[in-house]
């Protein structure tokens, strides 16, 4: 099943309340995905500082802080429950190999504007744990997972981020992910789980090197076999795609201030002015995108 949600703000009006809006959306999608939850939230990238979102897993914050400070000079290191956000002017090609050397931690995302938090447990607990209500930003994507094809772990939780400021959430299942994973590995992509969505995220990241998000998703209609509603985020916005059979639901509400998408309308029922919004279902096989 799974629940997916997203908000893209068209004006600055709700930037401070973005976290609170997304939090309620995620909690109302708990019935669709009680196993784990996660969210990616995008904030301005004015100061050119990279943010690395890391899940510490079993490692203690103090130990990680001590170890990482030996290797990299960070401007800040912020703890949020079992995740940390490292902020540095150092580029990913330098930092990623260092983080990979830590065998117990998981890098869940990186970029100039993205921050990702995800964990197993009920969505209502996960949003509380990370204080999602206090986040602000320009756009955000979230997911509640009902696990089907791989284990209930942090690595099996969405969103998946396989490139700078990129992320993907998925409701559905892919049937050709093993073949596609093998192909992508040959061209240099790295995967941390057996999850089908991670493969789709890797596919998108790989394709984004050559083409824009809209063209990438249109190409994905041919290359990704299975059922899906995707929300793919980048630093400037997000795009939505449903497979051509369209078994997996999605509904979009658009007002002058925001665009919201969710698996079911009830996730959006609390949003401001939603009753005056233009509400529609994205048509199968059509890429919808919003961004600056």
């Amino acid at each position, binding site marked *: 099943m799974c629940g997916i949600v997203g908000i893209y703000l068209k004006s600055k009006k709700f930037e401070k309340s973005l976290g609170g809006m997304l939090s309620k959306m995620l909690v109302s999608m708990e019935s669709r995905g009680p196993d784990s939850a996660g969210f990616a939230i995008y904030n301005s990238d004015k100061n050119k500082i990279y943010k690395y979102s890391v899940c510490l897993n079993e490692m203690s914050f103090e130990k990680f802080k001590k170890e990482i400070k030996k290797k990299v000079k960070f401007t800040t290191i912020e703890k949020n429950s079992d995740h940390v956000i490292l902020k540095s002017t150092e580029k990913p090609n330098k930092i990623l190999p260092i983080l990979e050397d830590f065998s117990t931690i998981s890098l869940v995302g990186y970029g100039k504007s993205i921050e990702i938090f995800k964990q197993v447990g009920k969505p209502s607990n996960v949003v509380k744990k990370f204080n999602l209500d206090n986040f602000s930003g320009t756009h955000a994507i979230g997911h509640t997972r009902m696990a089907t094809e791989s284990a209930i772990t942090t690595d099996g939780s969405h969103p998946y981020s396989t490139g700078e400021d990129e992320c993907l959430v998925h409701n559905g299942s892919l049937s050709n992910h093993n073949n596609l994973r093998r192909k992508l590995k040959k061209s240099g992509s790295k995967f941390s789980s057996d999850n089908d969505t991670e493969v789709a995220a890797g596919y998108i990241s790989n394709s984004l090197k050559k083409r824009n998000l809209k063209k990438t998703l249109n190409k994905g209609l041919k290359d990704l076999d299975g059922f899906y509603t995707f929300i793919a985020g980048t630093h400037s916005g997000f795009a939505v795609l449903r497979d051509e059979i*369209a078994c997996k*639901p999605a*509904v979009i509400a658009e007002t002058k201030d925001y665009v919201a998408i969710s698996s*079911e*309308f*009830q*996730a*959006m*029922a*609390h949003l401001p002015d939603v*009753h005056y919004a233009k*509400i*529609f*279902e994205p*048509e*199968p096989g059509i890429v919808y995108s919003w961004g600056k």
Partner: protein
Amino acid sequence: MILDLKKLKLRSVNEKLQNIDRKKNKRDFTISNPEGNHAICAGLTENIDVTIKGHVGYYCAGMNQNANIIVDGNVGTGVAENMMSGKVHVKGNASQSAGATAHGGTLIIDGDASSRCGISMKGIDIIVKGSVGHMSAFMAQSGNLVVCGDAGEALGDSLYETDIYVKGKVKSLGADCEEKKMSKKHKIKLKELLKKAGSNIKPEQFKRYGSARKLYNFNIDNVSNY
């Protein structure tokens, strides 16, 4: 009587509407703040009027018998699924599988209905004033599907005996669905259906589609395909 879903539990509202005291005259209800909840007004059996003010979730008015339900908003998947009788009027758009497997009654959708509208319908009359999505009337067995807008891909795939009327464009017809002659009998029927939905579009503007009846029996020439 107003039933506010912000104050009352969905289950208690449905229980109330499912257990109407026939001796009392309260037969007019309004449900406020539906907030996209699922299964609102499912399983009603009495001849009552219910107006839902707002957008609803899945399976609204499912299994309806006799009740007259108006939704002043959009509906999620499977509105009026398995309806037996009565009337459901959606003033907004409907998600997929509207009127699925329904045996009777009338479903009117003022906006568009998405994919699989009238899937496996068994006697219901569905009138959509907008367009319908792909695979509409899939395996539809009986009743009428009227579409005042366009129809998506594979309309009427594996159709039995439902009559489909479409005013606009049909993207493609499904297996065993073909255009049929619009006889006087059909025009009269269509006029009656449109009138039910408050529409005065002329039946002459529609085309009728039905089953070619080639899938009813196994064709021995296809044996090598299996």
